[in-house]
């Protein structure tokens, strides 16, 4: 997924400058790393300084945090949630469990490589990353948005079949009520 720099019109640059300071994170703790989110949100590490606040519904959220391992049952809900989110959306993978299965590499229930199922923008190292690492990753995400390089979400629309094939390999046939290809054409993303 090379850095596809869209032709950067001035308007897009200004938008990115303003857009980068307001990222709404989905309040969904999918795994064990979610215990480090409250300290990041509350008084000591306070990520609201960067304009990042937890939002409750996928419609309003921009960042989907996959905090640690992802069991197959949660994967189905994560895919449903991811497809409900509005377009410039980014997935942040916490810890080594999303990179290569982590400590549960030989478990029958968890998936091993996250970006086969949803396009991932940023991985954070650590078997449960610390609050400082989480805030550092948000800053990297802000910088990538600023430079217009945070385009992993376009990948989901462009080669949706690749993702669909992997998802159904693990979960079998299931319908997410969201027609991605039709959305891609309707909102001319592809």
């Amino acid at each position, binding site marked *: 997924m090379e850095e596809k720099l869209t032709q950067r019109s001035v308007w897009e640059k200004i938008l990115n400058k303003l857009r980068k300071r307001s990222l709404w994170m989905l309040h969904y703790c999918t795994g064990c790393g979610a215990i480090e989110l409250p300290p990041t949100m509350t008084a000591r590490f306070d990520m609201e300084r960067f304009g990042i606040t937890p939002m409750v519904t996928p419609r309003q959220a921009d960042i989907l945090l996959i905090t640690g391992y992802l069991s*197959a049952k949660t994967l189905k809900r994560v895919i449903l949630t991811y497809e409900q989110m509005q377009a410039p959306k980014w997935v942040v993978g916490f810890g080594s469990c999303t990179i*290569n*299965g982590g400590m549960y*590499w*030989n478990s*029958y*229930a968890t998936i*091993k*490589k996250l970006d086969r199922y949803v396009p991932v923008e940023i991985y954070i190292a650590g078997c449960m990353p610390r609050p400082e690492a989480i805030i550092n990753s948000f800053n990297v995400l802000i910088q990538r948005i600023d430079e217009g390089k945070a385009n992993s979400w376009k990948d989901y629309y462009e080669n949706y079949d690749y993702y669909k094939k992997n998802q159904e390999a693990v979960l079998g046939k299931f319908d997410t009520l969201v027609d991605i290809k039709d959305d891609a054409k309707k909102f001319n993303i592809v």
Partner: protein
Amino acid sequence: MEYKTENEIIKEIKKVFKQAKCSIKKERRIEVILNKRNIMEFALRMQKNWDFPHLSAISCVDWIDEKQFELVYHFWSYNKKVLVSAKIRIPREKEPHTDSIASLWQPAKFFERDIHEMFGVVFDGNNELEKYILTDWDGPPPMRKDFITREFALNFYSYREYNPEWLQEIIKQGDKND
């Protein structure tokens, strides 16, 4: 006689279940080996007459060599402060049947449903034995010893290929000197 309460309890159990083998493993721990037919009555007496109101857990151990499942019922008494672990053995078939004590103990509903899911043991009398944790899992009961999770994971999920040059050199050096 430093295990006073423990011996009293064993005497009471022995009175009713003659052939039960009772032993004191350590302070506050009694082990009772029963026949699988009278676990239902044992549980009833535990709750009603012998004042053991708390069913801490029902564990299931898969003795694959002896072709048996072992169900261990842990009862705890708040007043006597003793834990009685009643063990029964059931044959290790595809769907072994045993009596359910869910009607007496509410926590047993969860444990029996969990053991049904993980081992495939059917508890007669418990009508809530549906899939609860492994709803999206259609494989064999995973906790049985003959299901190897490592093999399943390696060929069901795909891993990230990661062999950078520095790793290959180390492997090469390794091959040279052993």
